[in-house]
Every structure is written in structure tokens, then in C-alpha cells.
């Protein structure tokens, strides 16, 4: 095997970087939007941040194995946020030519991982 196959992909680097954002958060709701942040949150929970809470993207909290852990409809998500117990990571659903969209626009709504 030559070297390049062992080089991490850019996506893998990004997943690890995303995971690091939740380090030290303790038992709070992690709300990643989009594939890479979602993989990052799950990586964090499975390694150094086992206390993180994750949802199924609908109204339930789920364990590592996908089994139901609790109920969290949107009204309660907002309350968790207001209580300072939610850490969101979002990207942009689209970026305009001056590349400023990601700075102020909202999250890609209803993305599968909320």
C-alpha cells in the first residue's frame, strides 16, 4: 500500500474538527445541521463526549444505537436553547457570489439532523 491511501480525506478532517467543537460541553443537546457536522457530533459522543444528547431529527432523543432516550418536540428544543443547554452547528443551504450568505442566513431548515 502506498502512502496516499492512509492520508485522511478532507471530509474526515472536517468531521474531526466538527467533533472537537462539542468537546467539554457535558450533557447538552448537540444540534448538527448537515452530513459532516452530524458525523462530527456522533463521533464526539462515541469517543470523548459521551454525555451529549442527540435527536433523530424529528421529536425524539436517541441513544448511540438509535433507541429512544426521550421526547424533545420543537417547543422543548427552543426551551433547551433558551436554557443554555443546546450547542448548534449549522452550515449554509446556499451561498451567494460574494460568499456572505453563510454569515447571516438561517440554517438549512429542517435538515435531517436539526
Amino acid at each position, binding site marked *: 500500500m502506498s502512502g496516499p491511501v492512509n492520508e485522511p480525506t478532507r471530509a474526515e478532517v472536517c468531521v474531526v474538527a466538527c467533533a472537537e467543537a462539542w468537546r467539554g460541553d457535558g450533557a447538552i443537546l448537540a444540534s448538527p445541521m448537515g452530513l459532516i457536522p452530524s458525523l462530527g457530533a456522533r463521533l464526539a459522543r462515541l469517543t470523548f463526549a459521551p454525555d451529549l444528547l442527540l435527536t433523530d431529527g424529528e421529536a425524539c432523543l436517541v441513544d448511540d444505537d438509535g433507541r429512544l432516550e426521550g421526547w424533545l418536540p420543537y417547543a422543548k428544543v427552543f426551551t433547551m436553547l433558551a436554557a443554555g443547554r443546546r450547542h448548534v452547528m449549522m452550515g449554509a443551504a446556499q451561498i451567494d457570489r460574494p460568499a456572505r450568505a453563510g454569515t447571516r442566513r438561517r440554517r438549512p*431548515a429542517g435538515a435531517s439532523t436539526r
Partner: protein
Amino acid sequence: MSEPSARGVAWTEERGTSDEGRRRSEGGMGRWVGRRQRGVPGGRPPGVALTPDEIVAELRDGMTIGIGGWGSRRKPMALVRAILRAPLKDLTIVSYAGPDVGLLVASGQARRVVTGFASLDSIPLEPNFRRARQAGTVELTELDEGMLHWGLLAAAHRLPFLPIRAGLGSGVLEVNPELRTVRSPYSDEEELVAMPALRLDVALVHMNRADARGNGQYLGPDPYFDDLFCLAAARAYVSCERLVPRLEGSPQTMLLNRAMVHGVTETPNGAHFTSCVPDYGRDEAFQKRYAVAAADPREWRRFAAAYLESDEAAYQKAVQ
């Protein structure tokens, strides 16, 4: 993205084109009186189900209409389709927006949208809304989704505003220059956004079950904010998958009571193509067809002719 030129305050003052606001101030018993005074000829006693067209006949041009559900989930789509068939215009739509808003924007009936997002969930951006915003043909009051919640709660509680941290330090205050902040009168003196009440003329929501008196039940995982939409509105109308003599099951699922609701209609598959679990999930194939059609004006005309220009029965037959 620049806002269309401001037409004044986007929240409550703009509802001046209907008489619903005055009726609201009559309070409690005025509600049924108000209903007998207009709408269905001869009046209709409480406890009798309406048709979607009868409900839409109670709407007026320029009204602020709140629509329940979330994104592409449990939307009162049969009522939205009934609006599409009516000559209503200049509507302000308050919604956690999905295809409800997309359709009303595509039809040109929504003049302004008040929302935190417009999404089809599995398709991140609502395509009709996206096209209209890029063309500048619909006005937008863009809020944080928690601010929308707070605005509905303030209206439901009959408060002029509620303080919230959401919006501070973000573009929300830039794109909504009419938003004000308040300072805590207590020793912390914290500055907070004063989220104004989002008072609605009418709320439209979809339930899994309801009785004809106006008690409503959701059977899926999330009530969304349908109860707040109803309480924030002068008049609230409920469509349901199945009208039942009495609600059954867990009391926690019985979200709406008849004090919040002014009329009920039975619309089987009436949330299609949005999800209405456990009765049915989202029709992803149809939603994709909708999104593809929305991207192209000619395709859209074909889609509208096939699905939207006849009545609900024809729609349901066409999507089987």
C-alpha cells in the same frame, strides 16, 4: 439580500384591512356571534362540521393567516388548496413554512411571509419560495424560529411583546429595523429583543383526529405550535384526517379544545404531500415532482393544471 421597501410595521398594524381585529376585541362570547353574522348563510350552530370551501369563504383579502405544522410536516394542505381556488389576495402568511407557503407564494396570493425558514425538510429550500424571493415578488419578515414561537406566545397571552435573546447580535435586527429592544427593569439591566405579538386573523391547522365541536388530537411525535397558532388567532379552523364522535387515547395527545377552535372540517389525506404520521408519511416522490416543477415556469403550469386547478376530490384522485 435586500428587503423590499418597507410598508411600515410588519407585525400587527398591517392587519387593518379586515374587521377581524375589531371582532377579536369582543372576546369570548362574541366569537360564535361573529360567526353567525357572516360566513355560512343563516348561521351554523357549534358542533357542525364545515367544508374546506366554507372555511375559506370566511377569509378576506389582506388577512394575516397563521398556518400550523412545520416545514413539510402535518400542514393543512387541503385548506391551502381551497385558498388556491379562491380569489383571495394580499395575504400575510405566518408559518414554520413549507409547501403551504410555497403554494401561496406561487399563486401570488401571499404578499408577505413571516417565518424563520421555508423548507421541505428532505429538500432544504422550499423551491417556490426560493424562486419568489430571488425574483423579489414576495415580501419577507425573516425571524429566528424561536422568535416566531415567542411572537405567537405573546399573541396567545394577549401581551404586546415578550423579551427574548434570539436575534441579538444577528442580521435579524438589520433586516427587521422595526424590531425594538427592551432593558430589564431589574438590577441585571440586560438588553433583550422585544418580540412583538404575532396576532393572527385566522389560524389553519391539521390534526389527525377531531370532533365536530372543535376538540383536536395529534397522534404523531410533535404537536409543533398548533395550539399557539389557534390561541393567537381571532378565528381558528381545524382540518382533520378523521372526524370522530369522541376523541380516544392518551389525554396528552388532545392538543386543541373547543374554546380555541371555530370550525372543523374532515379532509382525509388532507396533509398530502406533507407527513401526517402515524396516518401516513410524507409522499417524497410527489414532493420531488413538486420541487422539480417549481424550478421551471412551464413545468409549473403543467403541474398546476394537473393537480391544483380542480377540486380536492380531483386532487386526491390524481395523487393516488
